[in-house]
Structure formats: structure tokens, C-alpha cells
């Protein structure tokens, strides 16, 4: 990843956070969306457990402590299906 300086442009910040979420060993998520709206960073997507969602926010806050985060990351449901699709 890049150096530890806070990036001066939003696009660089979004790119750095996207890579952090994939490459950090405690996160390893490729399906998280990262968007900047005014001063807030909005996180989207879904993960397998609440612990993984919380770890994402913890890692971003740890690296960019002045950044305000709005976390819209959901937990994917894992219930049994109720229907079947015919393939013909």
C-alpha cells in the first residue's frame, strides 16, 4: 500500500481504503463499497458476521482517526431456501 500520509484528494482516499479492506489480514473483503459524501465516508456491502463489519470500521478509524464513518454494511442472511428453480 501507499505511505501513511493522509491523501489530499478524496479519490485517492477512497482507493487507499478500498485496498486497505482487501489487503489487511484482519479484513480481506473485496465486496465493500466506499463513497465520500461531504465529510462522511459511507461504507456499503455485506459480510458474513457482525465481527467482520465491526473490524472494517475499527481498521479505518485506526488509520484515519479524523474521518467520520457511516456504516451501511449488512450481514448476509444464511437461512434455508423456500423455493426451487427448474432448469430446462
Amino acid at each position, binding site marked *: 500500500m501507499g505511505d501513511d500520509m493522509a491523501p489530499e484528494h478524496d479519490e485517492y482516499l477512497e482507493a487507499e481504503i478500498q485496498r486497505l479492506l482487501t489487503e489487511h*489480514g484482519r479484513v*480481506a473483503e*473485496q*465486496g465493500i*463499497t466506499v463513497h465520500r459524501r461531504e465529510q462522511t465516508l459511507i461504507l456499503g*456491502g*455485506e459480510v*458474513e*458476521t457482525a*465481527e*467482520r463489519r465491526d473490524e472494517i470500521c475499527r481498521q479505518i478509524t485506526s488509520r484515519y482517526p479524523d474521518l467520520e464513518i457511516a456504516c451501511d454494511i449488512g450481514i*448476509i*442472511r*444464511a*437461512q*434455508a*431456501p423456500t*423455493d*426451487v*428453480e*427448474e*432448469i*430446462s
Partner: protein
Amino acid sequence: MIRIAAVGDVHVDKDVLGRYRPALDRLPEVADVLLVAGDLTRHGTVAEARCFATEFGGLGVPVIVVLGNHDHQSDQETEVARLLTDEGITVLEGSATVLELHGHRLGVAGAKGFGGGFAGACASNFGEREMKAFVETTEAIAERLGAALRGVECDALVALTHYAPVPDTLAGEPLEIYPFLGCYQLGRAIDSAPTALALHGHAHHGSERGRTPGGVPVRNVAHPVIKQAYNVYRLLSEEVDAGLVAASRTR
């Protein structure tokens, strides 16, 4: 009739243990086999593979998987595949297996696949050594998948990959990353055999249904797309066949 349960991108680690199990315990009531379309683990470690085997093994029906890119992250894919095999899970990589189910032979050929993009926006085997290596990897994997599909003798043939064989099931993903999500060469391999159904994962923001240029139904079964423990697909259904026969007679 053959009933196939399928899911991908379950990314199992210790924190996932037990999440899928209530739904998986009911799986033998609704399906004859479970196919998992790669990204079984988070980082591709042997410890995580053991967690996957604990969560998804011992179901009472055969479990067939391909590995995904996450399962390669720790460069332990050989050890991961060996552990899964030792636990009774069939791991496909440019290979195929045939199951006898209800008097029918279900053939499943699988490979991880790779990126490369689709018609109009695909990578070419040209230029830097790294670029040529990328496309050569794509082509080699697709060729092995095609050979595996064409080599199977069965009544119903299913292709299982992690990367997508068509762009249809990527709808919802940013166009810019399509070349990292799949390649047309996988679709061409699938169309080179009498494939009845193609299943893949990898595209978490993609969509569920598509079709190859040759007309094979494609389903993206990535967990964030299907939003349940697994989907169930029915092939060679006598009810459907009887219905079609009846409909054709009334014409």
C-alpha cells in the same frame, strides 16, 4: 430428477462456524448434492479450510467444490485442496466427477477460472510479459475446463467455476472491474460441451441469472447475491418433461 444445491463465496473462518449449519442440516431433504463455487475461506489457510470442512462437510450428500481467489491468498491451495479431499469433499480444478443420483448420471466439471474480460473489452495476449502471463493463465484454465466438460459421459452436465463465464451475471458491478471478475473464454468452454447449467460466484454485487451465447443457463450463486444459505436447482425433472409433452400434444 436431480436436485442441486449451490452457493459460493462463503468465506469461512472460525467466526462463521455454526451460521450455515441449521440450513445445511436440512439440505438432504431438498437436494441430492451441494456445489460450492469457490472462496470457501477468507485467506486460504489450512486452518480456515478445516473450518469449511467442519461447517460444510458430513451433510449426508456429496459436496463438490472449486477453489476461489481467496483460497489462493496464502499460497497454500495445494494443502487446502488436500485437506478438503481428506475430509471427503471433491475438489475440481480442470477436472470432472460423475455421480449416480436417482438412476441418472450427474456430471460436474469445474475450475477456478480467471479474469480477462468479455467481448469488446477483453485483455489480449500482447505486450509486456506480465500481460501475456495474465491472458495465458486465463486461456490455460479455460482450455482445461472445456476438455473436462467434453470428456464427461452423463445425463446432465454442470459447469462449476468461481469466476464468471458471462457478463450478464455481473450486472450491478462497476464496469471497470469486469475483467477481474470473469472472462469470455470460460463461456466458450461451457458452450463447447452439452452443458445444462453453469454455476459461478465471485461477483458479490452482480445479479443472479444469465445465459451463455450458446444458450446455457448461468447462475451467480455468490452468497451476497442469493442472500440465503444455498439455492436449489432441479434438472431432468419428470414433472417439467411431462408438462412439456402435454403442452406439445395440445398444439
